[in-house]
């Protein structure tokens, strides 16, 4: 045990005394976390809802309900525009003046059931435009139903269809059936009103830079091999298992300490509620560190030069970070990608952290991800040891 600890201490000393470690292990993850967290949720005092411009070319009671119902729905901000705005709709949307511009055409009320449709101009690749479109589609569908109801009832009682359509439209103020969305999970003790952007970026950056940090430790192994230090070590009264264990323990310690620093920073500087279940966070962090250490051992054994270590670490970081949902949630990806992504240990690490931070689940929810990650650690370790022995 003393020999293992001696090798570990040697590695740690080399890593921690190197100024580059401070940059890669500490400074870069902190800067990236802060930047991305602010980018996703820059504090604003304005209304974050999408802005919809409405140009009403019909100017009737029924067409007037379009803007009115969008406003009462509360999902979007509405600005009523002059008639001429319809001609410059494309320009207004392209310039970003509006997230969506809705043009209610002339004749809408007269033939609302089967006449000209309102036209929504928006860039559907923009999330704000997508949110605005959902709200506008709901209102347009309701008023189309109202118009048809007006026609049906007019046919039965002989009254004016447009007046009946307006009366029906007013019925949507308090519909018989409605939907309310709630977030599942215990009410967070210190949760902010507006979602904290750091709750997304902090765990993601933690996982990404844990993987990237493997480069620092793997480099030591490569340098030892190239300088023949490793051969001399093996000639000493120390077994291969002790050498491997010493290196792995050093890599584990570095990754764990880095992760701990980012957790503490996230908790106190960025208000990410890791303290909801400290034991859960530590268990996931320990498992992640173990896997990353075995990955580092694997890279250190496979790579022959420093450049290869850099390249392999970079590829590993991209693959596991992007594939595991550290960059973007897997929910928004395709089915196959989402399925494959969830097979990766990084995805389980993200799950573990999000169970605590976002879902507010207790310690038990962190155990399953931690066990799975540990399984991956065992796999990578076994392959690395086999390769080490072969060499």
């Amino acid at each position: 045990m003393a020999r293992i600890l001696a090798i570990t201490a040697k590695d740690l000393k080399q890593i921690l005394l190197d100024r580059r470690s401070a940059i890669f292990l500490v400074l870069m993850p902190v800067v990236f976390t802060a930047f991305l967290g602010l980018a996703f949720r820059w504090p604003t005092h304005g209304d974050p809802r999408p802005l919809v411009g409405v140009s009403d070319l019909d100017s009737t009671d029924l067409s007037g309900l379009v803007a009115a119902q969008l406003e009462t729905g509360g999902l979007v901000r509405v600005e009523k525009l002059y008639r001429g705005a319809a001609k410059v709709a494309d320009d207004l949307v392209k310039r970003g003046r509006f997230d969506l511009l809705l043009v209610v055409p002339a004749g809408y009320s007269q033939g609302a059931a089967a006449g000209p449709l309102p036209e929504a101009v928006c860039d559907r690749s923009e999330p704000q435009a997508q949110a605005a479109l959902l709200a506008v589609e709901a209102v347009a569908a309701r008023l189309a139903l109202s118009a048809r109801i007006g026609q049906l009832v007019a046919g039965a009682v002989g009254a004016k269809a447009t007046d009946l359509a307006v009366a029906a439209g007013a019925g949507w103020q308090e519909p018989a059936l409605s939907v309310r969305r709630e977030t599942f999970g215990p009410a967070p003790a210190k949760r902010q009103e507006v979602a904290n952007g750091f709750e997304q970026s902090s765990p993601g950056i933690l996982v990404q830079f844990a993987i990237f940090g493997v480069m620092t430790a793997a480099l030591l192994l490569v340098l030892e091999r190239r300088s023949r230090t490793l051969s001399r070590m093996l000639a000493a009264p120390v077994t291969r298992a002790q050498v491997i264990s010493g290196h792995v323990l050093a890599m584990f310690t570095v990754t764990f300490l880095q992760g701990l620093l980012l957790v503490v920073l996230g908790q106190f500087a960025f208000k990410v509620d890791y303290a909801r279940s400290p034991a859960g966070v530590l268990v996931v962090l320990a498992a992640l560190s173990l896997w990353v250490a075995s990955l580092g051992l694997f890279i250190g054994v496979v790579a022959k030069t420093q450049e290869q270590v850099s390249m392999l670490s970079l590829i590993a970081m991209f693959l596991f970070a992007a594939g595991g949902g550290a960059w973007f949630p897997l929910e928004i990806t395709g089915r196959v990608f989402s399925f494959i992504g969830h097979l990766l240990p990084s995805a389980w690490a993200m799950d573990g952290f999000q169970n605590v931070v976002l879902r507010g689940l207790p310690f038990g929810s962190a155990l399953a991800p931690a066990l799975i990650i540990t399984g991956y650690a065992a796999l990578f370790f076994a392959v690395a040891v086999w390769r080490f022995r072969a060499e």
Partner: protein
Amino acid sequence: MTEIYIAGKDLRGSIRSRFFIGVAIFVPLLVTALFFFAFGGRVRETGKGPGTAPVRTVVVNEDEGSLRLGRAVVNLLTGPQLREVMYSTEVADTGLARFALSRRRADVAVIIPAGFSAALTDSASRAEVVLLSDPVKTIGPAIVQAVMQRLLDGFSGSKILLNTYRSAAGSGDKSAERLRRTRRGSVPASADDRQAIARLMQQYQVMAQSGAASLSVRAPGGGEDVSAMFRRMMASIFAGLMVFFAFYTGAYTALSLVREHEDGTLARLFTTPVGRGRILGGKMLSVVATVTVQATVLVVASTLLFGLRWGETGSSLLALAGTVVASSGFGVMLASFIKTTRQGGPVLGGGLSVAGMLGGLFTQAVPNMPAAFNRIALALPQGWVIRGWNLAIAGRPAPDMLLSFGVMLAWGVVCFAVGTMVFRRRFA
């Protein structure tokens, strides 16, 4: 000629280096492939965009009404019509639904309340369907909410139809009492009334199920299909990666001077009859040549592999030229301040990563970036380079690119001048 020979030799060395091919070519293509694969690859022409996995939903029916409308909703949600969008299963009660959410077996739980059917038959009643969702998920719950709202509006519409008919049919007797009783639904219906209502409901059901469109949607500027929008988004993401790795290659190639100085080969070169100025010139030229080859290969490869479009030829050539000049010049300047190759790691890896992040290279896919970040980006050459590419990808003509190109050129020339001056002094 000597400069070209030196540049050619260094370029051949770079192209033969597995590290260069790996980092400069393979990694950006790999990351783009990941994004491409993640967000749909070859977009199916469904008009709905890249396919996403169906939302896993559990449904609880607490409705006891005689109309059994809750059961009808459950059958719709669990039926095949919505399978592409939602994968729904029924569970017995809310406790099981919450359990499924806590175990991550479902992303959304739909709770149909007890008075669901009654809300449609009793004019004074209302009912609220509750959606419980995983706080990590945003898109899935929004989809389910939109689907449920449409479904429920169809039912609510029948009640509005009934109320509208009653108000209109009873409008001959405009007494306030009759109107109040009409709204409460307590005006007794005659046989004719009941027949008319039954007929109207039947017509309404046919109409509601017809699925006629109620809104037309188009993109600004003539309409871009979903496939083109997706490729435009991918092109922006790839441009960010390409610019980052172009700057990295520029600095890494320029660092060869430091490497050769450490290895002693530079000193040997300086003993040859070729002037130091020409040797340094050749090295600078190799930086330009290497970045040019890299950027060109990446643009061509991305077009062939992923079908990305880079806008008008003139615009994309200007963007490419600006990228080469800015990244080469910046790389030379950066390398001139590096004393040893050991320093190169943190400066190239760390410094360029932070500069790339501040320049907006890694946040191309982030919508509505704060204005402050966009201003910071323009204080760096990376910010102007990616701005140029974004203009080209958006289809802007070459004259619109001239400002960005001019700034890129200025950055490149100034950085080259500074870097060359520092190198000359160092190796004087």
